[in-house]
């Protein structure tokens, strides 16, 4: 072949490889950038629903109410202004209530006199707490608009309640979700790690080659089952079993999620740690046996220490799988956004929340951005895990040479 042409085609292939590499990394960077851009913009958004105002009578001393108190007022858990530093009981006013104060005629056919009517209601009742669309606010509105503050870093990470669709003020406390994710993943890894390690030791050291040749593909097959199938299996089999076993009022618990995720993480843990164990040099094992150590002593003292970095990596990748898993968890953990006290309670995880809520969140609204912020938290969690893997496997290699 023409040497010039050969050189050219080599260059061409190199270029092609370079382009695909760059495009892939660029895509990753762009996705991360997009995620954080959307997620971070949740902060400094107003807590009160966009396009609405809340207002009180001019004589009311209260100037600002926290989103949490607004929710409690609308749930009628706070019924008096005294709790908020004012006086007298609260009279709630929603747009629909206008008909109890004014007739349709007074409001006008096309609601043209509605702003004036609202203004008069708010002005005439000292205890009022009104919530209505901004476009019906009169130009010379006689009430006092209330500041509800913005969504801050603290309320987002420290808030205990997740009611993203609550009106008029969404409650965006991610704490129950973060804790739920951690509990379920931790439970999963506590179940999967001993079982996975035992299976890996059996397969790499004890099992006969014939057995191993059947078992390995079987376990790998476990990774190929769609997560919805796992979820369905969990809902129909594991959830009632847990309910009966622990005599609980409800079987959809963190434990059910942990068990399902544990099963799902098993193939990762088994294959990676088995590979690591099989990489133990034959000479080392034989040396140990030659010195009179039993087979079990060899496994404990030689094989496991030698492959510890691989085992750690397997465990951490298993956790990574558990943290990010969505569908199976969504189906079995009950998804109640409460701060969990034990693993036998319903929990709500971050991936399940995003999957369940993104479909209906109004595009660009507070809820939508909050879900992206949750995505950022999840991203950081998995990033930390991956960096730990890098660090552990990397440092081990460094020590060896």
């Amino acid at each position, binding site marked *: 072949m023409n040497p010039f042409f050969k050189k050219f085609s080599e260059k061409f292939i190199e270029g092609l490889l370079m382009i695909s590499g760059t495009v892939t990394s660029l895509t990753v960077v762009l996705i991360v950038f997009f995620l954080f851009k959307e997620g971070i913009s949740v902060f400094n958004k107003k807590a009160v629903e966009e396009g609405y105002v809340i207002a009180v009578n001019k004589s009311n001393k209260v100037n600002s109410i926290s989103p949490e108190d607004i929710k409690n007022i*609308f749930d009628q858990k706070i019924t008096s202004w005294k709790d908020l530093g004012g006086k007298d009981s609260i009279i709630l006013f929603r747009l629909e209530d206008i008909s109890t104060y004014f007739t349709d005629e007074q409001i006008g056919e096309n609601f043209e006199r509605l702003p004036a009517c609202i203004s008069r209601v708010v002005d005439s009742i000292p205890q009022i707490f009104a919530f209505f669309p901004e476009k019906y606010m009169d130009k010379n509105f006689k009430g006092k608009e209330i500041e509800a503050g913005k969504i801050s870093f603290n309320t987002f990470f420290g808030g205990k309640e997740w009611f993203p669709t609550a009106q008029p003020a969404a409650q965006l406390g991610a704490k129950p979700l973060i804790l739920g994710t951690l509990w379920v993943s931790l439970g999963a890894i506590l179940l999967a790690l001993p079982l996975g390690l035992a299976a890996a030791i059996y397969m790499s050291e004890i099992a006969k080659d014939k057995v191993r040749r059947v078992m390995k593909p079987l376990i790998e097959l476990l990774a190929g089952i769609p997560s919805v199938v796992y979820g369905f299996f969990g809902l129909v089999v594991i959830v009632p079993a847990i309910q009966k076993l622990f005599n609980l009022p409800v079987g959809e618990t963190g434990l059910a999620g942990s068990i399902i995720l544990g099963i799902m993480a098993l193939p990762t843990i088994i294959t990676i740690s088995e590979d690591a164990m099989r990489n133990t040099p034959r000479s080392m094992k034989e040396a140990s046996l030659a010195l009179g150590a039993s087979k079990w002593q060899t496994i404990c003292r030689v094989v496991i220490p030698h492959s510890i970095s691989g085992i750690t990596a397997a465990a951490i990748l298993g956790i990574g799988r558990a943290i990010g898993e969505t569908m199976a968890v969504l189906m079995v953990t009950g998804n109640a956004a409460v701060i969990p006290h034990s693993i036998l309670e319903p929990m709500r995880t971050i991936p399940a929340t995003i999957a369940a809520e993104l479909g209906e969140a109004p595009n660009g609204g507070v809820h939508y951005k909050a879900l992206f912020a949750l995505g950022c938290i999840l991203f950081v969690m998995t990033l930390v895990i991956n960096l730990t893997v890098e660090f552990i496997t990397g440092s081990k290699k460094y020590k060896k040479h």
Partner: protein
Amino acid sequence: MKTMKTKSIVIALSLYAGVTVAQKLKGSDTVLPLAQKEAESYMKANKSAKITVTGGGSGVGISALLDGTTDIAMSSRKIKMTEKIKLSDAGKSTKETIIAQDALAVVVNPANKVTQLTREQLEDIFTGKVKNWKEVGGDDLTIVVYSRESSSGTYEFFKEHVMKNKNYASSVLSMPATGSIIQSIGQTKGAIGYVGFAYVEKEVRALKVSFDKGKNFVAPSMVTAKGKSYPIIRPLYYYYLSSVEKNVKPFVDYCISAEGQKIVEQVGYIPLSK
């Protein structure tokens, strides 16, 4: 002769219109099965029409309307003020058509002794004030409340209509789909939840409800829902831009025609009363 000519022109025009009008529907998963059936039979009647229906959720449908990626948004809730403002900011105005109604049944485990509840009792149960079945006339058993996800139109409607806009207790279990609510209630003794009337199966039992403080308790059925004596019914909507009204109107009209309403009943929703 003249009539022949006009007739053929009309036919040609309608054919032409039929060929060009490929319609997309997107939105609520509750409306999805109904819209699919409607579209199927509409396409059977009008060979040239092409309608594709996809789900995703009411919010997805309405934001698709905003992006212009759908012609009709299906929704199981009324359009929100924020969405309306967004649309009007983009210079678009929407038209709303109610195409059917859906009755919600409050369901419990068949082993539960309670057969009827008032609206006030339901509110207390779903807001977490009442926590044990013995407080509402049942056994000494913890109440386990199942609800749909907050993204579901059903969730919003139940909150507005039954709970008078109060928020659900945070301990409420939210399930991703109606099917899993039924599965869970069927296997949990103290469970209560709500599902679309069409989904009530023998694994669960529907309660009679009273919206007049316990004077009349009504069981959900096609008859009581049609006669409006059953109180928990909600409208299902189509939203479309006024600018494309001409294109989508034939299909929308078909859905609310007598023929379309027959399909509504077949799918298990409540036809519009005339």
